């Protein structure tokens, strides 16, 4: 038997208070590389807050987050993203007045023409890398069958296409891990199945993911292990079959 792989993400005793409300109450779990770790739980369990803390949008009151061997607790979101931990949002977060292709290009790290000096040096300076980035973005569009939408303004896409766009955009940063906050919310069933397959493909390529999802059937197909939260705490961790067999999980869903 192999030694268990080192976790890529370690969430340890994280707490977050909003005034008197303790939204996350000492949550701990770990995510393994190359897996899709599901984060489930009833409404108000603290999943989105925890995702926000991992992504850097929300500062934790206490606790620590270790990603890829480094402490990232309380870092600014862009610093966390640059380390390879990139999140998507529960509500669509496309750049509305940019085209689909531009949305992807924005996400490319360290672009030559992205500094003031670089911009003023004009296309002569940044044109070549830009062309390479456009190529890379078109490869991603091809892969996700979004090429026909290349020049569409992102704000005009359907709800499902926006979710897909966000995933593609996150991939442009070459992440080590994706944090997907309800990636199937508002997506029609056909496109949802396609996105599922894309996520499975990405996993097969070794990309690690954490996914918050309400649809348990989807979680069962994609996620292993599954982390169950209720009232700010992690109440169970294991395979879907294991956790759904546990009484406290059933209680949380029925009562919560």
């Amino acid at each position, binding site marked *: 038997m192999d030694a268990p792989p080192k976790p890529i993400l370690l969430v340890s005793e994280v707490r977050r208070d909003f005034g008197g409300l303790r939204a996350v109450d000492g949550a701990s779990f770990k995510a393994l590389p190359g897996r899709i770790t599901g984060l489930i739980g009833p409404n108000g369990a603290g999943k989105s807050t925890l995702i926000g803390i991992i*992504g*850097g*949008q929300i500062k934790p009151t206490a606790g620590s987050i270790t990603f890829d061997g480094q402490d990232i607790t309380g870092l*600014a*979101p*862009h610093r966390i*993203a*640059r380390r390879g931990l*990139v*999140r*998507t*949002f529960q509500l669509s*977060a*496309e*750049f*509305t*007045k*940019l*085209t689909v*292709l*531009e*949305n992807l*290009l*924005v*996400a490319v*790290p360290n*672009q*030559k*023409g*992205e*500094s*003031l000096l*670089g*911009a*003023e040096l*004009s*296309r002569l300076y*940044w044109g070549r890398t*830009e062309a390479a980035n*456009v*190529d890379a973005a*078109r490869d991603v569009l091809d892969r996700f069958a979004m090429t026909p939408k290349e*020049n569409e*303004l992102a704000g005009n896409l359907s709800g499902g296409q926006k979710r897909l766009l*966000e995933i593609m*955009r*996150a991939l*442009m*940063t070459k992440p080590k891990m994706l944090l997907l906050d309800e990636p199937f919310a508002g997506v029609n069933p056909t496109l949802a199945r396609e996105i599922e397959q894309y996520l499975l493909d990405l996993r097969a390529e070794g990309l690690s993911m954490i996914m918050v999802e309400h649809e348990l059937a989807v979680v069962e197909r994609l996620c292993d292990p599954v982390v169950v939260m209720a009232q700010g705490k992690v109440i169970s961790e294991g395979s879907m079959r294991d956790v759904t067999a546990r009484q406290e999980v059933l209680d949380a869903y029925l009562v919560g």
Partner: protein
Amino acid sequence: MSDAMQFYITTLLIYLFIDIMGVLGLNLQFGVAGIINFAYIVFVGVGAYTAAVVSLGPDYPGNFQHYVFGASWPFPLPILAGGAAAGLLSLVVGVISLRRLRSDYQAMVMLVLSLIATLIASNATGLVNGPAGLATVPQPLFDQLGLSYLEYDWVYAGWCFFLTVLIFLFVRAITRSPLGRTLRAMRDNDRAAAAVGKNITALRLMIFVVGGVIAGISGAVFVEFIQAWSPGSWLYPETFVFLAAILVGGSANNWGVMLGTLLVPVGFLEVTRYLPPIFYQGFIEAMQWVCVGLLILLFLWFRPNGIFPEKPGRFKPRAAAQSGPAD
């Protein structure tokens, strides 16, 4: 052409070019980067005051006006000083207000800043001569050139045109580049931009300072033409005239906002200035403000993207060999 006509035309041209510079700077901040800077005119004002005090010569007892610093810097140093001072103030204001606050609160901070700045300039009389303002600012190179007043105005119009082209090229290099794209992305969704690794605080601060420098330069060039500057020249509603130009012409579209400048601050305000007075003194001026407000409302309602809407980036299609059906 009669002298009066020439004077009228050169003045309008100079106003147009100077307003275009100002609007291009505000468009970078507001149209491209989404920073709601209701204090933009303050940075124009700082540029103007700075250019004035570094060219008026040292203050002396018994002078009819009093001000700080006082020097006789040669052309074009006052303009550069105006830009630098406005940029420096932008940096200070930006560091304080752009880091933590949400954009709607930033807008309020800017509006309040605009009111405070006018009060300070009016009441700290030793600073820039209080409510009376500064006058007799020398026109650059007037003696050296040895031209008549009218000839000088034509040369000055040409100088303003030259500066406008420079600033336009500078701004366009930003809006066409990956930097411009990233700024537009930040405007559309700053959380998402941060989530893909963009340092939005640094980006905001940078473009705020760049816009501030442009504002300062436009103010400096303006004061060297009209030779006087007082708190009444840069009241907070002036910023809304610039915003109206941007919204009418087309936010984040450089050509659009230049057309907007031709239509609103110049066409609308300058031309109506010459209408015969009706009803009572000041009626036309009051109506101008009402109309600027209505114009903003109408455009936001019926044509929110302006006359020339923002143009997203287009890229050359991939070489046809790879894909696409053969015909």
